[in-house]
């Protein structure tokens, strides 16, 4: 059986966030907030631009409104960051391929910035509860959930600093076009071929194609490449208890299913061959 890296479900950015929380002094309050988070008191979390809005069920009937945000980078700061990114193709390549580049933090550090806040006090927050302390347990409960959100969609981090992934990608392209001299090619006016019903050369009723040779003999696959490429499902503790373990159970099961399906399909193919 394939050995999945279950560590990958705790990517560094989530871990960084949790470390940040651990550095907080008032451990008791944090503990209560963690329970709040686990018991499902955080009803919703929404990202609206650089701001996070959440609804947390407190002791009142009406849930409290929590909002929090980081200090967004200025346009100028972003410009430096993106210029640094453009020095190495790996950033654009990974972002375009749907991955968070592993060394993304370097880009910010080089410009004297940090993608992550160094202390919790950098995280601005507000809660509609009567508790004066900040963070109150509602806000802290949202903190816990955010760590998981980062592992689900790491690009949320960019958003909190004022840029979406696509904005970054666009900016990178703009930069490339500014840096490179484009030799304008004579633009051909040929339009893309239209694939209309009647133009594709088939007849209305007929199908005279032989079966493709590679589909004649169906061979079973030896391993489930798909699961290997995907790695473990990035489950978070608030969604399923003991997330790492649950993820392992699910991946193990899926792997068994994939093997079973491949074998059965192969047998079905063989049987039809024999008939």
């Amino acid at each position, binding site marked *: 059986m394939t050995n999945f890296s279950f560590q990958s479900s705790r990517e560094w950015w989530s871990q960084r966030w949790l470390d940040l929380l651990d550095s907080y002094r008032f451990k008791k309050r944090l503990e209560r907030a963690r329970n709040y988070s686990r018991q499902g008191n955080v009803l919703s979390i929404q990202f609206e631009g650089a701001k996070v809005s959440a609804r947390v069920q407190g002791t009142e009937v009406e849930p409290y409104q929590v909002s929090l945000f980081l200090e967004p980078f200025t346009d100028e700061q972003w410009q430096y960051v993106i210029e640094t990114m453009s020095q*190495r193709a790996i950033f654009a390549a990974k972002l375009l391929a749907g991955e968070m580049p592993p060394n993304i933090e370097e880009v910010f550090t080089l410009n004297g910035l940090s993608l992550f806040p160094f202390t919790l006090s950098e995280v601005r927050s507000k809660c509609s509860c009567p508790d004066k302390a900040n963070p109150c347990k509602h806000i802290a409960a949202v903190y816990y959930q955010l760590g998981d959100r980062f592992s689900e969609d790491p690009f949320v981090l960019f958003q909190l600093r004022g840029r979406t992934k696509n904005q970054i990608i666009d900016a990178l392209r703009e930069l490339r076009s500014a840096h490179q001299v484009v030799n304008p090619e004579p633009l051909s006016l040929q339009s893309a071929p239209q694939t209309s019903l009647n133009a594709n050369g088939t007849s209305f*009723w007929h199908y005279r194609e032989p079966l493709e040779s590679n589909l004649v003999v169906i061979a079973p696959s030896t391993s489930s490449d798909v699961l290997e490429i995907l790695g473990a499902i990035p489950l978070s503790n608030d969604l399923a208890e003991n997330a790492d373990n649950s993820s392992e159970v699910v991946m193990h099961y899926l792997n068994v299913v994939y093997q079973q399906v491949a074998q059965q399909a192969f047998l079905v193919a063989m049987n039809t061959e024999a008939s």
Partner: protein
Amino acid sequence: MTILHGNWLAEKNCLFVWGETWRSLGGIEASLDDHPLVMTPAELDEWLRKSDLLPQVSRNLLKTLLEDTAVVSSGRNRKRKNSQANSVVEIERSPCVLLPTYSDKQEGSAYPIHSAAFSLESNYSLKPWRVQGLYLEPLAAFQFLTSLPLGTAHQEDEYLGGDLRFWSHVARWSLDLLSRCKLLPTLNQSDDAFAASWRSLLDSAVDASRLEKFAKVMPEVCLAYRSEEEQLNSTSPSSPQELLLSFLDSMIDTQIRAILAGTTPPNAPSPLREWLQALTTQDQKVKAVPNQLERLAAVLNAWTAPLQYQINQARSSFRTCFRLHPPETANEWTLAYGLQAANDAEFVVDAASIWSHPVEEWVISDRTIVEPQETFLKGLGLASRMFGPVGASLEQQYPTSCHLTPLEAYDFIKSIAPRFTDSGLGVILPPSLAEREGWANRLGLKIRAVTPRKQKELGLQSLLNFEWELAIGGQTLSKAEFDRLVTLNSPLVEINGEWVELRSQDIKTAQTFFASRKEKLSLSLEDALRLSTGDSLVIEKLPVVNFEATGALQELMSALTNNQAIALLPTPKSFQGELRPYQVRGFSWLAFLERWNLGACLADDMGLGKTIQFIAFMLYQKEQEVLENPTLLVCPTSVLGNWEREVKKFGPQLKVMLHHGDKRSKGKAFIAAVRKHDLVITSYALIHRDVKDLQSVTWQGIVLDEAQNIKNPEAKQSQSIRQLESAFRIALTGTPVENRLQELWSILDFLNPGYLGARQFFQRRFAMPIERYGDVDSLTQLRSLVQPFILRRVKTDRDIIQDLPEKQEITEFCGISSEQATLYQQVVENSLAEIDAAEGLQRRGMILGLLVKLKQICNHPAQFLKQNKIAEPHQSGKLLRLVEMLEEALSEGDRALIFTQFAEWGKLLQPYLQQQLQREIFFLYGSTSKKQREEMIDRFQHDPQGPPIMILSLKAGGVGLNLTRANHVFHFDRWWNPAVENQATDRVFRIGQTRNVLVHKFVCSGTLEEKIHEMIESKKALAEQVVGAGEQWLTELDTNQLRNLLVLDRNAVIDEDAE
């Protein structure tokens, strides 16, 4: 006459199947939009019960559905629909299909064009028609489609529409996806409900291009279905790709659930538990807390995101590609990046050009690359996950390539390249390193064969003189070079500037080869022939990677693989008649193969004169004085007489002997008699019985006429024939032997024993892949293997057969059975005495009556004896011959008319032929009602799958008929009036006839039929005067003349039971 159609209905998530039939549209009362040619449930039910064309599994599925339908529609019990999990039927809510429709502006009517009659040239417009049919739920649909035969349709099994064949191929693809684990579990939200399902994953280049290919060849009808609610406009609600994906996802989902049925997913916390549950059971609904499910859906989305990129990558028109360059000087390989057109691997844009085009759309050589840099970078990002060196190179700003060590390069070729292609990336390897699967780039032998070794007798097993060299990737290697390469101890080596892969296993094989004794190496003519037809061969475990024939052998090879290249021989002087050019080629070809002792199969269409080509061949042999021994010709009993007659007519120099009948010679007398002849003709039936006597003769050749008679290799006659020794072997057959694999094997194995391998091997290697899956590679391979031994020309091939007359008359002489002979003699003896005593009108009447009786006996004793069915077909030589010829005609896709002057014979013949040929057969005679008559003619002429044979009584068939679709006319019994027969023949040969017409006139040998035929033929002019008035002239003959005319020639009696 029935064609099953079907289509995947994405909206309903089911396969819709319906039957198309043919009926004359005149008498149909149909409501306006109902498709008039769709089968009713009753018709479909009847077809399913009667026809065994559809495979058992598929048939049973439809039957079950029909039974449920009957309940639903008769009982009007809607509840049942919901209670049935697997097979829900709604026959009342039928879809509409936009079909090619012919509109008659004058009559204001419109009718859909039958699918088999449709051609793109037809003048049509699309119009919606309501179609009644069956709905198959996904699981049933999968089982139905995967049981259908995958091969290309033959004439007789075109009961499957192109649309259903298309879906059966796509279903095969879904099975392939399952076996390759190309699937993903998903969780989808629609409104407030969550559903878990499995979907297909088309991330590899193979599947992406398959999707495009299937979308391109999808029959248009698949996009013409509309549910009732929809506007019936002409644009399809979904694209071909969407329809295909909907089908694949549904097939994959239903298959996985079927496989997992009964298993329990592990105990995971909620909502994972509920999700896994819903992925394994029949119910897709996930019952858990909605907001948790929403979260899970987001998690799964993030989890599969990288694959989404791959899928998009695989579908886009350009993909990032990686071209491996061998080292130029140092030991450093280069992997260069670029973009490659998805539909043309040759079209590659290099990285430097891409970096200078930061544009949204880049038009280059009529191609548009959307977001070239993003597409390129995306591919690089994907590749960096799989191959470290690529990732490292991306630290540059504008990466264009990376360098690889020899080991990395080998790793790339061996394991990374396949993963790249499987993930939708392009890979270009040096030609000498590509194609790891085949032998082209493997270490092997290069063989150059010169001449056959000196031998007395040449044949397939004759050994050749040849030279060999070690070769790899198109480069030859000396032993010293090979040893040097081995010491390099590297998997990639360079030979003369070409890099090739040297596998350790191949090195061992080669070392063993060098250690073995070379003088034991042998190569036969058969090996050479296989090699030049593209077959693979291994000598001492080393594959032959290159083969070349020179000198005399090259001439032989090219003549064998291209029969046009064979030198034409002059027509033998003693040949009485004229040979058409293609016939000269035919007999020259026979002589050529005979010279090399190779068995030949002449498989020309019926009517092209196989007989005279063979006679010319025999005469040529005789003139060359190579006939040392007699030749044995084996044919069906029904044509024995015909053969003897033809040989005497065209090759009177040949001494021919008929070995048959109860007076045939045996033992020493037989051997003595045989020695005096050139050609001995006997029947298949006698081969087994007289095998001892036949074995004791040394034969020059053995020739099988209608060689399909040995198609069953287990049959006694087939086995006996194989026991006879001879210098050459020839098979003559008119059936398209290449399409009937069992027959092909049997005939080839008789001609050239062992050439196609043992029967079981042949079955496994060729018959199954071709018949079950229509595997084109196997078919091509088989065709090229047998091509040297089969010469087949078809009568429609005007290029070769330019001078064929449009109407050809052939007289078929058929023997008579002992039953016929006995009855015939009795009737003649009894009647002649009475006629002698009678006079005037009474005498004339008696003679005419006698003629009728004799004709009836010649047809079949059952007709004369007024039996109600044909129980003993072998009692009539004419009937045996008719069935043989009809089988041959049907196998060529031809259509035939059979004329008889006796309605009662037609009544006997129709059910018999129907049962014998398993085809519907029409019979049109005096009592056929006008309506039936019109319908028969309409169906015969227009129904694309109408009955291919029509029997007509000569009187009924006389007037006002137009049956130009037939190209064979059989005159089973004779009117002795050429004018009447010609008039009948002209039903077929009319304006509008585009094909050559063969007119077969049956004559019963040894009877009055033959005598009158000869009279007519020898004095045609006179005969037309005499005979002009019908058969009256016969009544004027005196008793002696009459006796001479009627006396039976007992030599014509074919009696297989006589010892």
